[in-house]
């Protein structure tokens, strides 16, 4: 190949995923697939009460059970600190309460661990749980966030009067009050964003191993952020020196946010491994996962939107009760503050806005980030209210949106609630494309005709913007986050020209190995097959913050690009040295470094990799090997956007909602692998659509989780999900060198209100202006028959 030949770029192509062959032939290795010699099994006794004092625990019978190796309670492990809360609401007092490894005196949600059995196999461990005798003093429980703040409500924690964990607000209250007072039209609503359970198909767990000779610990967990887990375990929870704990993440069977956080079973597994001198394994069953792994959403919000009679939005006032559960989870306060309240104005140029958020303790499972994390709640709120305003004004909802969109020339755009500037956007083309795909004007005719025949069709529009690529460290620390949010990479080109990339990102379904290899192969001009992407082991990857917040390409990918750039610079230096040319005259292109104007004077990256690895002839000052590490702290977040439209049909006799069409036009910037982007969009949409129609985590007034298994919690099946039509616009991000934004959460952020707006549009002949999610047949039927 001569230098003038252009190697075909693979970035932008929908190549098949390299992750798949092992996963679809049963050769993936997930946490529970790992067996260690002499491994013991853990079962955890969990509180049947949502709120109770532990009077006494008798473990003697369990300890005597054949096959049981040890039984422990919370008092045995007071040397383990309570779990950390690493993101607190900024600028206000946070009344922090976090769980211990096992509860000691009092439990605050049903499912909190109180005792642990370790046995030769998991079945014996389970059997022995029944032999533990706990004397409880049951206490009254409180589950509703707003009611829990009222005087006289059951109190959970001494340091949190009225169960208030934090009280926080953003935006200009005075200006907002004035805007709403002066508005010609004001629409008000109470909007519930119900609690959801993330439900990755693989539950969580932990395998702990301890070597007493070296004092080394190893922890295997199904994690989205193994370096963060190591850091928190060492620095806050257990005091293990950071170089004495290795965290390994095998294949992860989905996360959706729930696997970011610190859970009690992680220190538990390490503590037991040391105490018993044998490796231990804990795997949640689904019922435990539903009780104790974090939940998402759970907001009750009063909202007012003020506008002129011709539809110019003037002000938005929001008051939200955010249910935090029995304790604060790892980053819980950051979700309803920074990631919700600060993007409450959505895609609209709203001059005045204010959002007040009260974080509340209740006797329920902890709530933390779940796919979209705050942004779905914000997007749902503003998009529901814009539709509500359109009905009030008698305006077309598409035109009302168009009239209030932030305009392309307004970017970088500063919103009224103090977010970082939106990087880039062009909202109308996505709306237009979606309207064209659905055949908007024809639909309105069809809808009117159908209604005459008792057939209730509805169309819902959702125009959204989100915050991805989290986040510039200085900014996010000013927002209360307790560490950095940069990302890392290391790139090595070995003697034989094979490339190994290690990353702090943690793929768990996103196709990161494939997308990163596409970028690396193009940048270095090597064969795609010659690039390996490695991740997941704190011993062999640079410190990184992990995968969540749609950050892996926009932060982790850019960190890799930086290392690749450094490699290319070194290749040019060594090539110049070998060719006796000036470095300033060298060009790197298509896998070769050559002298500008003399392409015949060139060295391939393979030749330079070998020369660098041998190290016999290097330019002065250069070290052997092509091996570069980079840390990338983004200067801004990135802000993907788009418009989704759905059409539903409501059966007025049964209340059943059928989604007839679902159209998604998304702009996530430059797409590295469009097939993977579309897969992310599909999955995201169905999770948001499931919130609109099916899913709800329901507690009774005693704090018992009624939707406690997959029998009761309605994760949709294939037959409950619609066919999805996908299209894109591409507005590159100016924030990073790849022009990428993010796609992991977009579908979820766009879809709940898209479907609800359609349902409520279908119900408009019955005078329905709002309906809470999920729009189950019962709820829809009652809405139809309420008048």
């Amino acid at each position, binding site marked *: 190949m001569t230098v003038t030949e252009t190697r075909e770029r693979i970035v932008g192509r929908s190549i098949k995923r390299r992750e798949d062959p092992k996963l679809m032939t049963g050769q993936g290795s997930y946490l529970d697939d790992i067996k260690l010699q002499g491994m013991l099994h853990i079962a955890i006794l969990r509180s049947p009460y949502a709120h109770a004092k532990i009077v006494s625990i008798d473990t003697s019978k369990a300890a005597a059970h054949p096959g049981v190796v040890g039984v422990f309670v919370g008092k045995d492990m007071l040397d383990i600190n309570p779990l950390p809360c690493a993101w607190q609401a900024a600028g206000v007092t946070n009344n922090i309460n976090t769980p211990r490894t096992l509860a000691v005196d009092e439990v605050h949600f049903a499912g909190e661990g109180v005792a642990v059995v370790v046995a030769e196999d998991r079945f014996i461990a389970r059997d022995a749980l029944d032999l533990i005798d706990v004397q409880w003093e049951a206490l009254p429980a409180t589950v509703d966030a707003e009611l829990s703040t009222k005087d006289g409500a059951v109190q959970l924690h001494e340091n949190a009067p009225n169960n208030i964990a934090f009280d926080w607000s953003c935006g200009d209250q005075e200006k907002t009050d004035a805007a709403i007072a002066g508005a010609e039209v004001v629409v008000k609503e109470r909007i519930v964003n119900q609690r959801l359970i993330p439900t990755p198909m693989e539950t969580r767990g932990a395998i702990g191993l301890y070597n007493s000779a070296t004092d080394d610990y190893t922890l295997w967990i199904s994690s989205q952020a193994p370096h963060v887990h190591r850091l928190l375990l060492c620095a806050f929870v257990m005091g293990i020196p950071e170089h004495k704990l290795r965290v390994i993440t095998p294949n992860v069977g989905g996360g959706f946010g729930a696997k970011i956080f610190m859970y009690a079973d992680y220190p538990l597994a390490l503590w037991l491994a040391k105490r018993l001198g044998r490796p231990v394994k804990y795997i949640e*069953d689904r019922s435990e996962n539903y009780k104790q792994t974090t939940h998402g959403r759970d907001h009750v919000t009063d909202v007012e939107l003020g506008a002129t009679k011709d539809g110019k939005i003037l002000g938005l006032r929001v008051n939200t009760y955010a249910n935090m559960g029995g304790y604060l989870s790892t980053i819980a306060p950051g979700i309803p503050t920074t990631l919700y309240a600060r993007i409450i104005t959505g895609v609209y140029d709203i001059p005045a806005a204010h959002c007040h958020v009260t974080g509340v303790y209740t006797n329920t499972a902890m709530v933390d980030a779940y796919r979209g994390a705050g942004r779905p709640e914000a997007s749902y709120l503003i998009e529901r209210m814009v539709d509500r305003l359109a009905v009030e004004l008698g305006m077309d909802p598409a035109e009302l949106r168009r009239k209030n969109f932030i305009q392309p020339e307004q970017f970088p755009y500063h919103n009224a609630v103090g977010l970082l500037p939106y990087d880039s956007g062009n909202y109308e083309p996505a709306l237009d494309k979606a309207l064209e795909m659905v055949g908007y004007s024809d639909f309105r005719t069809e809808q009117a005709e159908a209604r005459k025949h008792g057939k209730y069709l509805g169309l819902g529009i959702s125009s959204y913007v989100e915050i991805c690529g989290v986040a510039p460290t200085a900014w996010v620390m000013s927002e209360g986050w307790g560490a950095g949010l940069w990302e890392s990479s290391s790139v090595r080109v070995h003697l034989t020209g094979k490339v190994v990339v290690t990353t702090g990102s943690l793929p768990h379904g996103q196709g990161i190995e494939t997308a990163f290899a596409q970028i690396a192969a193009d940048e270095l001009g090597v064969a795609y097959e010659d690039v390996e992407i490695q991740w997941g082991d704190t011993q062999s990857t640079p410190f990184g913050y992990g995968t969540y917040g749609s950050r892996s390409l926009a932060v982790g990918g850019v960190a890799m690009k930086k290392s690749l750039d450094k490699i290319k610079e070194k290749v040019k230096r060594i090539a110049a040295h070998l060719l006796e040319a000036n470095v300033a005259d060298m060009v790197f292109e298509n896998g070769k470094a050559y002298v500008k104007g003399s392409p015949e004077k060139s060295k391939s990256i393979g030749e330079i990799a070998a020369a660098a690895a041998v190290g016999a002839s290097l330019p002065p000052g250069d070290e052997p090997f092509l091996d570069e590490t980079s840390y990338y702290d983004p200067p801004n977040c990135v802000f993907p956007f788009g418009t989704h439209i759905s059409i539903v049909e409501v059966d007025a006799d049964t209340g059943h909602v059928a989604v007839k069409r679902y159209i998604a036009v998304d702009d996530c910037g430059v797409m590295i692998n469009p097939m993977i982007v579309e897969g992310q969009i599909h999955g995201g949409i169905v999770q948001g659509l499931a919130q609109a129609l099916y899913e709800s985590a329901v507690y009774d007034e005693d704090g018992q989780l009624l939707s406690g298994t997959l029998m009761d919690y309605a994760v949709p099946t294939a037959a409950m999900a619609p066919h999805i039509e996908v299209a894109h616009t591409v507005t590159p991000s100016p924030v990073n060198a790849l022009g990428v934004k993010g796609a992991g959460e977009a579908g979820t952020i766009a879809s709940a209100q898209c479907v609800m707006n359609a349902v409520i549009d279908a119900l408009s002949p019955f005078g329905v202006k709002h309906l809470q999610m999920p729009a189950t047949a019962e709820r829809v039927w009652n809405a139809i028959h309420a008048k």
Partner: protein
Amino acid sequence: MTTISVTVNGKQHRAEVEPRTLLVHLLREQLNLTGTHIGCDTSQCGACVVHLNGESVKACTILAVQVDGAQVTTIEGLAANGTLHPLQEGFWEKHGLQCGFCTPGMIMAAADLLQRNPNPSDDEIRHGLEGNLCRCTGYENIVRAVRYAAEKTNASAKLPEEHTGTDGTVVDYTAEAQGEAASEAASATAAS
């Protein structure tokens, strides 16, 4: 403990099981076939679907003692001689998997669906896979993957044969066969 004999992916196994041992635990814990997954405790998710005498079953709802003398095929046995099954090919081509946890069960259920209905409509695919949950894909590409496999299979007339016989070897998991090591482990258990 009961000793059972079962043919899994063409290989005959003997194993000692408790009366309560589930097929999925036999496969995963004793036979080390970890491609079959556990995603729930109420038989909803379908991550554990395998074929029992040629038909799909949830391995969490079958007791190990019930498969004595039976033929079981798991995801590990689906690709014959390194050639991907048309469904595996379809899932790869159409991006029918993301995290991959549901995929083995989904593919085994889809294989049974295609045996019963070689040319299903999209709607029939969606209803045919109602016993299997996927949280990543939104099912769009799973439907495409199954359709791909159906079209490919119809073009080549029939599905590739699954393992139905034995290859003559017997892998013995009983304590007796595992010898001293197993007895020692057992006595250690009893002593503690």
